[in-house]
């Protein structure tokens, strides 16, 4: 960075007192640099680091608000209980994994398909893209409410449309109450909300593919299918990886839609890890136990985030 400080020659360098000014200017730059960062750094320290330390302490405590007993130190017991004795924890992890993997796979395939279609439209697509993106920009809670109406077994439009299309053969599905389909209903809500996001970033990637490459592929007699897999996909890969990682992190935290549409039920077939943690902390009030689960999630998210950051840094290095 020091080279930036160097004052271009030939400018007003001949001014008297110039040398003194640049020497004191350097230390002033340093103090400005730190002064500018300080408010944000202190804020983050107070609102993220401090609460985390507070929580870390809780991981090793047993503190049940329901029993009125004082908090006591229990060592690693909470972590051991979560990982080895809590079937519900692992069930919720499985639900989360299914939603994450299934969701990202479906969203990526449909999103890529739509992006390829939109890319053909050229500049006419602008309004269309905005309309497609509405699901991404609205509150997940509201999206959940919309689907709650759509899934309603008696008055919902979904069952009605299915009945029309199958001439009354099928219908009357309990999208929310039937344990065999509830998870699927959640998955579709998530797909509805986030497919446009992946569509958007694949579209952005497509625009950066040089047209010459397609022309060259066509001259070489490549079929559209070959062109897609050999030219488009490799060039889109960095963008797609970023998209997958962002979606993976977000769907790991899936909570709002669950709360609105199924409340984790029926039973706990749609209970994600976020939702289970919420129940432990704010319904059963096992604070130490909740902290232990929160930390496990924090570690998992940090691992995915590390991928994301490393990948980004690597990409920047190449540019």
């Amino acid at each position, binding site marked *: 960075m020091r080279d930036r400080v160097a004052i271009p020659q030939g400018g007003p360098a001949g001014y008297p007192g110039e040398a003194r000014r640049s020497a004191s200017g350097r230390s002033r730059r340093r103090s400005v640099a730190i002064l500018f960062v300080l408010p944000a750094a202190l804020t983050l320290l107070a609102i993220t680091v401090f609460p985390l330390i507070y929580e870390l302490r809780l991981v090793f405590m047993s503190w049940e608000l329901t029993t009125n007993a004082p908090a006591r130190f229990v060592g690693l017991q909470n972590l051991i209980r979560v990982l080895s004795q809590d079937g519900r924890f692992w069930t919720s992890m499985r639900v989360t994994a299914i939603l994450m993997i299934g969701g990202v796979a479906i969203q990526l395939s449909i999103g890529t398909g739509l992006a390829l279609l939109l890319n053909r439209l050229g500049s006419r697509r602008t309004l269309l893209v905005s309309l497609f993106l509405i699901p991404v920009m609205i509150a997940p809670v509201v999206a959940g409410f919309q689907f709650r109406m759509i899934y309603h077994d008696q008055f919902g439009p979904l069952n009605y449309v299915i009945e029309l299309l199958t001439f009354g053969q099928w219908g009357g599905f309990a999208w929310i109450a039937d344990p065999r389909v509830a998870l699927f209903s959640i998955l579709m809500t998530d797909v509805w909300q986030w497919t446009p996001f992946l569509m958007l970033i694949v579209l952005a990637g497509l625009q950066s593919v040089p047209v010459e490459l397609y022309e060259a592929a066509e001259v070489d007699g490549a079929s559209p299918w070959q062109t897609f897999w050999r030219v488009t996909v490799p060039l889109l890969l960095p963008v797609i990886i970023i998209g997958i990682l962002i979606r993976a992190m977000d769907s*790991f935290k899936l909570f709002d839609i669950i709360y609105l549409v199924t409340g984790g039920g029926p039973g706990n077939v749609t209970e994600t890890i976020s939702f289970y943690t919420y129940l432990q902390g704010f319904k059963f009030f096992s604070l130490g136990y909740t902290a232990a689960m929160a930390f496990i999630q924090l570690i998992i998210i940090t691992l995915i985030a590390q991928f994301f950051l490393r990948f980004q840094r690597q990409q920047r290095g190449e540019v």
Partner: protein
Amino acid sequence: MRRMTRLEAAVTAGLLIAALIFFMFPVVWMFLTSFKSEAEYFHYPPVFIPKDFDFRNYFNAMAFPPDGRGGLQGLRDSLIIATATTLVAVLIGSLAAYSLSRFKTGGDNFSFWILSTRMFPPVAAALPLFLIFKQIRLLDTHLALIIANTIFNLPFVIWLMKGFFDELPGELEEAALIDGCSQVGAFVRVALPLVTPGLVATSLFSFIFAWNEFMFALLLTRRNVRTLTIIVPSLVGGHEILWGEIAAIGTIAIIPGILLSILLQRYLVRGLTLGAVKG
């Protein structure tokens, strides 16, 4: 690229229209429901278009309890929280972003640490915040939610603004410095005006994130503060399901999102990927 044949064009249009119906239907359905009477939304086969478009549901939804659903209070609280969070995050965030971009303060690791706080699972942050706020009697206040939302919005603003400052050539500020401008002056009078579009986009994103936030609002408030995102589920869980009125609140709650997806199109990719994809 190759021109499409007529068949291809027809297939493309058909698929896109189908997709558009799929992605628009839930929103349109909610919008229509907000005008339906109870007899219409509890009817089989479902009524698609309400008989008359009056604003009865909207009045009931916005009015204060016990007669109404308190939507007006929700609107007020959501506005206060989203605006204040955005102001705080943008104010201290763009200062930090400038410093990180121009002086590489703290190096790459510090920048990446800031970004990684954005990835936090909210449920992990909620428990300690709840206990701390309880102790200092901050639960159920606007301030509690402003602080909680800042956890995610501040790193977002810093990271996005850093990207905008990185793209700005440093020469202009250097010229200002040589002309006797102070370091702070170079920031305020040279750099800041040049990143205004980015600053506006970042602020709008920050606003919408705080506006749409749900988990903190659920866990850190009770009665005094009720954002729109809290009112919707609380009515869904009630014993009589007032679909028309909930739909009215829901429709009001998504207006900023719809506006922004149109206004922000140029910056959508960037904002939604934390600057990882420039678009």
